[in-house]
């Protein structure tokens, strides 16, 4: 009986699945966002970042793309730029012969319109551009002029990364914040919504794309995946061509199952995950103690247990990988306090007067035990595991550190208010290390305990850093920039405001059965991870049909 049912079922299933797509019809199937069902939103200006993934890196396009692999700006909707008026004015030269997908010509007016729209609707300005901009004007069809209210060279990144919307469409939109833009008109390689169901949607190529003969792929397909487990299953069974999922033991689970086609590349982003120690804590305010804690952490174990060895222990400066080019030359001579050295750690604690009691835990002079909570976001399993390793590491040098998990909201609120002892967290990101050090050491962000601070949650600052940061904002001179960044790194190593844990990597997997020319270690024209937003445009344009 059972047999009959099973046989009839399998026949049935074959019947259902006979229409397996032929090779040339195959859509590039992508996983980037965890979701159970899709919501149709293609608003590239959306404040919440809730638009579908290819909106700002497929349908719409920015002025320049910063290629983190090459460390250079790739001209996209603009071809060139120049700083004028002592860095108070920025001139952009706009690409010609670009069409919107409805065949309307693209022009400088669209760029100026986009920025002025953000000025008009404060809620759209998530990049905070108008805190340093004064005006944006189209000087002629091919030039746009950005006037600054104050000199702020780092603002360049935010400006060139802005996806540009069509003036002739958006000037009619009354509430662009709430506009979900169901049928987008863009300049990008993929603009046509072919199908939109709650569990799958498809995006067709832009017939009027400005790059000749590109893209080669005819359409993109996005099935909804609610969990990494499902993504992995889909990757192995060949239902996915490109994904950005964390997959544990990826060699065993994925790559080795079909070495010819199953590829992955977890490229370093140059950023770092940090272990924050609250400098408002009476023990942790001492930089020697922070270094002692850092010495006690066995980063190779953290990387192994927490990160499946997908990454490397962090550099003492907090920057590495693609950012390593900013390191000062004499960096090797500096104190390397990210190296595992429990003996030294113990010694520093002893020297500071925190001795072990009979239970093996350290006490301060009043006999109070050194005991801290490490707060981590619940559900962020890699961090939780890392925190568990750190907790055990610290136990070995006599420090009680308990891992406490909080829901993201509660965790965030504690971080911002400075109500924590220790925590694992991210750092500010950018095309160079400036945002990182600013977020880590600027007094600008420091708020009293209990008040929300945007960055610098551990509340560290020195006057020296503040003046360096100010200088940095005003210069576009490469040599000055380099010099300031060297100085900032030295200060970071001296004070250890936060403890770097491991280098950040981004997850990227691809299945090359149907498509080729994905980025790889050998061909690093962009990161493989579809989580790299703007740089993904380069991938979408360059992927080839096998």
């Amino acid at each position, binding site marked *: 009986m059972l047999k009959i049912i099973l046989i009839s079922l399998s026949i049935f299933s074959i019947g259902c699945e006979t229409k397996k797509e032929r090779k040339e019809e195959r859509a590039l199937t992508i996983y980037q966002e965890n979701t159970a069902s899709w919501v149709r939103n293609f608003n590239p200006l959306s404040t919440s970042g809730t638009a579908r993934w290819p909106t700002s890196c497929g349908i719409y396009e920015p002025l320049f793309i910063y290629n983190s692999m090459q460390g250079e700006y790739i001209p996209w909707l603009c071809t060139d730029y120049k700083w004028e008026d002592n860095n108070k004015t920025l001139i952009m030269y706009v690409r010609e012969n670009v069409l919107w997908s409805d065949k309307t010509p693209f022009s400088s007016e669209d760029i100026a319109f986009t920025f002025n729209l953000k000025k008009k609707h404060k809620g759209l300005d998530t990049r905070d551009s108008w805190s340093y901009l004064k005006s944006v004007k189209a000087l002629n069809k091919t030039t746009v002029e950005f006037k600054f209210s104050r000199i702020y060279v780092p603002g360049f990144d935010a400006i060139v990364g802005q996806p540009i919307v069509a003036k002739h469409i958006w000037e009619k939109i009354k509430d662009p914040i709430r506009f979900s833009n169901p049928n987008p008109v863009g300049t990008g390689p993929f603009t046509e919504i072919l199908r939109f169901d709650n569990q799958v949607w498809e995006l067709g190529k832009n017939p009027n794309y400005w790059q000749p003969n590109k893209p080669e792929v005819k359409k993109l397909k996005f099935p909804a995946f609610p969990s*990494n*487990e499902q993504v*992995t*299953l889909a990757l*192995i069974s060949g239902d996915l061509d490109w994904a950005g999922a964390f*997959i*544990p*033991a990826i060699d*065993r*689970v994925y790559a080795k199952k079909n070495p010819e086609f199953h590829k992955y590349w977890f490229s370093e982003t140059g950023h770092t995950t940090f272990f924050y120690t609250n400098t408002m804590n009476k023990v942790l305010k001492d930089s020697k103690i922070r270094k002692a804690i850092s010495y006690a952490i066995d980063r190779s*174990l953290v990387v*192994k*247990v927490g990160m499946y060895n997908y990454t490397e222990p962090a550099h003492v400066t907090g920057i590495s990988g693609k950012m390593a080019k900013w390191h000062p030359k004499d960096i090797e001579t500096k104190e390397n306090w990210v190296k595992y050295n429990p003996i030294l750690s113990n010694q520093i604690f002893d020297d500071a007067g925190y001795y072990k009691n009979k239970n093996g835990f350290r006490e301060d002079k009043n006999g109070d035990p050194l005991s801290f909570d490490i707060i*981590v976001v*619940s*559900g962020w*399993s890699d961090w*939780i*595991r890392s*925190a*568990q*390793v750190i907790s*055990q590491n610290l136990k070995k040098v006599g420090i009680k550190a308990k*891992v*406490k*998990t*909080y*829901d993201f*909201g*509660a965790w965030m609120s504690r971080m911002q208010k400075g109500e924590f002892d220790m925590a694992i967290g991210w750092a500010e990101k950018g095309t160079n290390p400036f945002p990182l050090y600013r977020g880590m050491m600027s007094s600008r962000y420091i708020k009293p305990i209990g008040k929300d601070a945007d960055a610098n949650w551990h509340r560290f600052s020195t006057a020296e850093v503040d003046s360096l940061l100010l200088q940095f904002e005003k210069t576009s001179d490469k040599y000055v920039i380099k010099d300031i960044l060297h100085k900032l790194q030295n200060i970071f190593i001296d004070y250890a405001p936060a403890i770097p844990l491991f280098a950040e990597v981004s997850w990227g997997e691809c299945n090359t059965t149907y498509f080729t020319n994905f980025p790889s270690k050998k061909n690093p024209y962009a990161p493989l991870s579809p989580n790299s937003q703007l740089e993904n445009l380069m991938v979408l344009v360059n992927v080839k049909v096998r």
Partner: protein
Amino acid sequence: MNKNSILKRWGRGIIKNKKASFGIYFVSSLIGLSIFGPLFTLDPTAFLGTPLSPPSLEHFFGTNGQGQDVLSQTIAGARQTLLVAFTTGFFVVLVGAFIGGAAGYYGGKIDDFLSLIINVFLVMPGLPLMVILASWLPPGPLTLAGVLILTGWAWNARVIRSQMMSLKGRDFVLAAIISGESNTRIIFVEIMPRMLSLLASSFIGASIYAIGAQVGLEFLGLGDVSTVSWGTNLYWASNDLALLTGSWWTFVPTGLSIALISFSLTLINFGIDEVTNPRLISERNWKKQLPDNTLNNGVTPVVRKNG
């Protein structure tokens, strides 16, 4: 108390009942293991060996994705899971008994009010509420127990209320009232012991529910995944893609433990039911007297010596 008291009789019945005694045996040995086991096993949180190594002499149940010993994690997990489960069971019954008992005993306006609360909690969808609450509150066993109690008490309160209502109208309660007993004494000395089998099976039922719901919430990552419990064991196993890596040893021991303890508890409940409600005992003895393949077909069987 005299050995002929009905409670003693139930007690003896349960011990003699095969299902219940198997259940009790298994549950109590698992409780014992969870209390004393961690003294003999490795530190369940220590990172000991190669992650995901299969069972070996060194690690009887292998290691999980973090190189922790699965055997000690299973034993240590029992401790927290059972603690939460039985705490929840206890409080669900306690709250249920207090609110349901008061509603049933006092009747009138008090009942109207309490019944309304009970019914509101009953129709309130428990699982979503559980998920929402568990996500907002700081994760941990206390939150889990609290959430499970909050969403689980109403059902028991309803059952206890109706039982109380049927008992409080009984003559022995009226007799106690007339002889001048105080309400508290009537409730706790006269009525509650009569409900003992109900309370016991409610406790067990609530504990089973608590195990399931707790493990489910933790599996979703809504528990404190930095502690060791059965739910978090499974959470990590799924996180490490245990199925796809073929590391069955990371999820089978815990899954089986959960199934076995829930099953044993269910068996105890079967036993309590059969002992206190003899009608439920399957007619095995009766069947034994009959020729083969005779079932109850609505005609009384005749078994005569002389045919």
